[in-house]
């Protein structure tokens, strides 16, 4: 099975998303009940994410340029494949936006329930901190990125 430069660069993106989900998301999962200001080592994690991303992509794309010396030009088929995968990504982003809005609405409803019933246990079970919001957004971004890139790769192989 031969693999082109474009397909390899998509695989690099997928690998990065998976590694990001496995390495950095557990930290946000563990701290999802805290507020951002109370998270231990948040700045360190953000710096780690930025530096590791820059190094990873710089190294990978440098190796890619060395291995695939010939420049691959973009053509109409690439544009079609890109637009199809971006369309899927856009739909998933829209869907996740609805999920987040729905979640926030449920929080407001729980506040109302607290006012009506005074049930603190029910209210606390649905509390959402800003750490939780960050975790939710990062999970969705990683998930959407993996799905979109996988579909992009699939289209390159089959179209």
């Amino acid at each position, binding site marked *: 099975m031969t693999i*082109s430069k474009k397909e390899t660069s998509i695989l690099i993106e997928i690998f990065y998303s998976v590694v990001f989900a496995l390495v950095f998301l557990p930290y946000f999962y563990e701290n999802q009940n805290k507020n951002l200001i109370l998270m231990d080592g948040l700045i360190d994690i953000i710096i780690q994410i930025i530096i590791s991303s820059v190094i990873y992509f710089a190294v990978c794309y440098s190796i890619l340029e060395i291995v695939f010396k010939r420049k691959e*030009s973009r*053509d*109409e*088929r690439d544009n*079609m494949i890109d637009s199809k995968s971006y369309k899927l990504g856009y739909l998933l982003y829209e869907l996740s936006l609805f999920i987040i809005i729905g979640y926030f609405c449920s929080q407001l409803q729980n506040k109302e329930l607290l006012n009506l019933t005074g049930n603190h246990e029910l209210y606390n079970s649905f509390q959402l901190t800003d750490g939780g919001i960050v975790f939710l957004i990062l999970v969705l971004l990683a998930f959407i990125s993996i799905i979109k890139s996988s579909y992009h790769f699939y289209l*390159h192989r*089959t*179209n």
Partner: protein
Amino acid sequence: MILKNNLKEVRQKNGLTQEELGNYVGVSRQTIISIERYRYKPTLELAMKIAAKLNTKIEKLFFFE
């Protein structure tokens, strides 16, 4: 009705490789492979460029079946 083509036969008759034809019309080898396998339907502009390069009429190169 499926849009088919006899690009492979015509290209081979003209003694061109997929890579060479792709370079002439400004697309990648993968695009030529996809067209020959009926996976990708080229735009009118690309179809006309290919037909012109292969000295054939577009309707002889691409047809419905």
